[in-house]
């Protein structure tokens, strides 16, 4: 069926705003960022081309190196732990527990909270003089120590705890949908075969849930790259620079430290890293699609 000129026009005019936003905001802003990273802009943007000078400075910057180090630790631990905890929660709920709806809502609830609120809550919980450590000591466990958040070498793990707490509910919801998709008769067949429950999960169900794991992992990964508010709200990068993350590095240099050149160089590095990770994955997906 051929669309009339009129309806094609209206279709185009409906798409136009989105198209403009896409062109100007994404492509335009990205190109501008990349260009700025090749200049010596400080507080105000300028066009003095300095080649890769900003990148050299970036690699020599302790704070940046710590940020990258932290995001790698955070990314690996956060994604794997959130997948694990979310899956275990889903399995627990899948045992046909009572009040399933209520429990599911409770687990999903943290996800509806912003990172700022999550960060503040956990900052308080992990604070040695106010939170868990304090409560344990007041119960008589005098030797109880839980002061990760004030120790530089462990502060990043506190971000992981808060992040996992927040995201596990979402993973649970995705996994639960996957588990519910498993044919009841497979469970019956496994029972007749005499397989223990954990064995069914490990050898039969998990291999069936590749799509659920992939979906959850992709969603979680986007959260890793964006990690900013949690760091700001919980530790503000501290103690010292112990829990700095790349996105915070960019924001701080852009607005507080008035170093547009360095900030955009950091942003561009993040972009290239993401592309380097995502491109092979997309290529693999496309190839797989062809083979099918």
């Amino acid at each position, binding site marked *: 069926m051929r669309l009339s000129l009129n309806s094609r026009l209206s279709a185009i005019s409906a798409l136009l705003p989105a198209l403009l936003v896409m062109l100007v905001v994404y492509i335009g802003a990205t190109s501008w960022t990349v260009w700025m990273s090749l200049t010596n802009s400080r507080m105000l943007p300028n066009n003095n081309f300095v080649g890769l000078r900003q990148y050299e400075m970036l690699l020599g910057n302790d704070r940046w190196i710590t940020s990258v180090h932290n995001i790698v630790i955070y990314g690996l631990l956060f994604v794997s732990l959130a997948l694990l905890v979310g899956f275990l929660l889903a399995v627990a709920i899948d045992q046909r527990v009572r009040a399933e709806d209520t429990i599911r809502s409770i687990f999903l609830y943290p996800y509806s909270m912003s990172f700022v609120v999550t960060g503040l809550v956990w900052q308080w919980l992990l604070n040695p003089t106010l939170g868990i450590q304090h409560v344990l000591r007041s119960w008589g466990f005098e030797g109880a120590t839980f002061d990760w958040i004030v120790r530089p070498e462990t502060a990043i793990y506190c971000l992981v705890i808060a992040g996992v707490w927040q995201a596990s509910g979402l993973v649970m919801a995705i996994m639960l949908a996957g588990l519910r998709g498993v044919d009841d*008769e497979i469970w*019956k067949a496994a029972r007749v075969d*005499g397989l223990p429950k954990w064995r069914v999960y490990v*050898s039969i169900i998990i291999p*069936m849930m590749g799509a659920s794991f992939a979906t959850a992992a992709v969603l979680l990964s986007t959260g890793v790259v964006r990690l900013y508010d949690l760091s700001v709200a919980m530790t503000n990068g501290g103690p010292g620079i112990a829990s700095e993350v790349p996105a915070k590095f960019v924001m701080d240099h852009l607005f507080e430290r008035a170093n547009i050149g360095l900030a955009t160089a950091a942003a561009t590095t993040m972009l290239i890293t993401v592309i380097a990770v995502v491109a092979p994955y997309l290529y693999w997906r496309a190839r797989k699609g062809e083979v099918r």
Partner: protein
Amino acid sequence: MQKSNVDIRSLQIGFGGLKVLENLDLHVGASEFLVLLGPSGCGKSTLLNAIAGLIDVRGGEIHVGGRDVTWAEPKDRGIAMVFQSYALYPRMSVRRNMSFGLTVAGTPRDEIERRVGEAAQMLRLTSLLDRRPSELSGGQRQRVAIGRALVRHAGVYLFDEPLSNLDAQLRAELRVEIKRLHARLGATMIYVTHDQIEALTLADRIAVMQGGVIQQLDTPKKIYREPVNRFVASFVGSPAMNFIPGQLARGSEVAFIAGVNRVSLNGYAFRSQPTDAPAVLGIRPEHIELTASNDPSAVSARVEMVEPMGADTLIWCRLADSTAFSFRHDADAQVRVGDTLNVRFPAEALSLFDETSGQRL
């Protein structure tokens, strides 16, 4: 291979307030092929799952091979089961699907290999052993599922509508295969279906169920020829049995009166002394015969529709009192719509039912 009998005594099963089975008794002999036949929701799967130990019973006992297994785990009951949706483990090869249960149970490797090889050869799966279920056709998948059951060397094999996801031709093929398997293994098999052709072709005995109650438990021939009530009569047989309402009349001989027509019941095996009461006459389409108009037992009817069915023709007629019935005739029947035919209802082939209770008279 051992063959176990199955003994079910006053079994009760319910879900919440719903009672699905109540005081059900059933005995299945060793090496017997028993088919549970009935409409959707009558409790066939429930009964089969109870035998397998997949649902809890509320009361009664289940014995397999002389052992009380009412509260035993499925794996300890000496049973194997095949499901409607195949229920294969999707990410495992055919070989692993068949061997996984044995591996987990700690069966020695060479024994597993021997059993898998044997089952694969029996089911013509040898060349497919390294494929995944997603790389198989529906019929092949179900053969794998049967293979997975066979390697358990169980005393009783349970089938829950194993063929109903397949198309007609595959169903016919696999039906033959299952029958051959039963003949070869001599194992006890309990087979659930709502397809009466499967039931009639496979079974040693059929249990026709309705509303959680076994209505009739008999050989296929008995079920077909002498249904104990109107439900069994109408559920089994295709095209369906004809029912003609009327009245029993005792004179010099017992007869059935439907309007102006009179059918002699001389030769009908009454279960009890007949009375002059309203009744329903049942007759299968293939038992109605054409006859000459001067035959005293002839009933005349008008042809309303002719359905050629290949090997024969189904002719739909209407009696003078407007009761409709169908009968089968050779494919070369020279019958046209509007013709008037004279037919005969042979007493030996009839079934008579009480009008109110529906029980066979």
